[in-house]
């Protein structure tokens, strides 16, 4: 096992453990951990098994096998970021609905207060 692969294997394992630990401490929701765990698992598998990495690289016409790992990492980052953009959009929408609801309720209450005073 060469040094690059060892580094990547170590990094992938650390990433895996970090995500698990964050979930355990309730700092990260399971829902958002899944993609990170998938990324870490795939990276770990490829960096520990030389055979797997080399045959996959050969299949895809990649001359320097460890660069396949970088490619996988990059693709996962893209997917995770799109996922985040979707989640942010949903949150923005919910936030808008909440604020509108708040304004409508406030108006409701002040109108009821006025009626009671009369």
């Amino acid at each position, binding site marked *: 096992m060469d040094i690059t692969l060892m580094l990547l294997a170590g990094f992938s394992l650390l990433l895996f453990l970090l995500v698990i630990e964050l979930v355990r401490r309730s700092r990260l929701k399971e829902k958002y951990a899944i993609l990170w765990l998938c990324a870490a698992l795939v990276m770990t598998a490829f960096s520990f098994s030389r055979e797997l990495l080399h045959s996959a690289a050969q299949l895809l016409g990649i001359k320097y096998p460890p660069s396949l790992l970088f490619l996988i990492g990059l693709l996962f980052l893209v997917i995770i970021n799109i996922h985040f953009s979707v989640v942010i959009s949903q949150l923005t929408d919910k936030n*808008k609905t909440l*604020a*509108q609801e708040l*304004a*409508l309720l*406030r*108006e409701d209450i002040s*109108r009821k207060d006025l009626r009671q005073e009369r």
Partner: protein
Amino acid sequence: MKILIIIPAYNEALNIGAVIEDINTNGIDADILVIDDGSCDATSVVARGKGATVLRLPFNMGIGAAVQSGYKYAERGGYDVAVQFDGDGQHRADQLEALLLPLRQGEADVVIGSRFLNEGCYEAEIHRYAAIRLLAWIISCCIRQRITDPTSGFRAINRNAITFFSRYYPDDYPEPETIVLLRKAGFRTLEIPVFMKQRKIGSSSITLLRGVYYMGKVLLAIGIDMFKKVSRR
């Protein structure tokens, strides 16, 4: 007919009083709802002082979310017609009756007041005018109906359209996009000529750079809307 006039306002304490008075003195039998979009000035206080109902949003959310709050209010309050009216004094209350007429006669679901149907009555800076023209042309092609003033925020809509808008309304720069959405949902839109007050030079909130962003965002939204399935309910 139960009519609600929705006035979105952001830091318009200096104008909002005159706007409400203008509506009141023109003898329209309507409730006035001011949406205070998180202003830092006395917009809410002034509007309440003039007898308007005020929805105060907890923070600035932009014109789309503000106007939609008004449509939600209209939907829950059982209004038959909702009118959108600018809080900066650009729109004229003496044009309201003309805007409402097609709705009273059931000729349209949505009526848009156009500055450009009266030839030569409204002057805008050249790049602004060109952008509006281009947008008008694109939208007219998209919906196969002639639209002259797609950015006009002077509109009256009926009950069905109120329900539609209270479900979905675009966030920023909503006016041009809603024309396309309304068409896709099968509503009848009608443009009528109206007079608007001239905005003083330089006070427009849309600068050149923002104008480019505006066009990009609106065109993207309209392009995607063309492939969207829009249901009426």
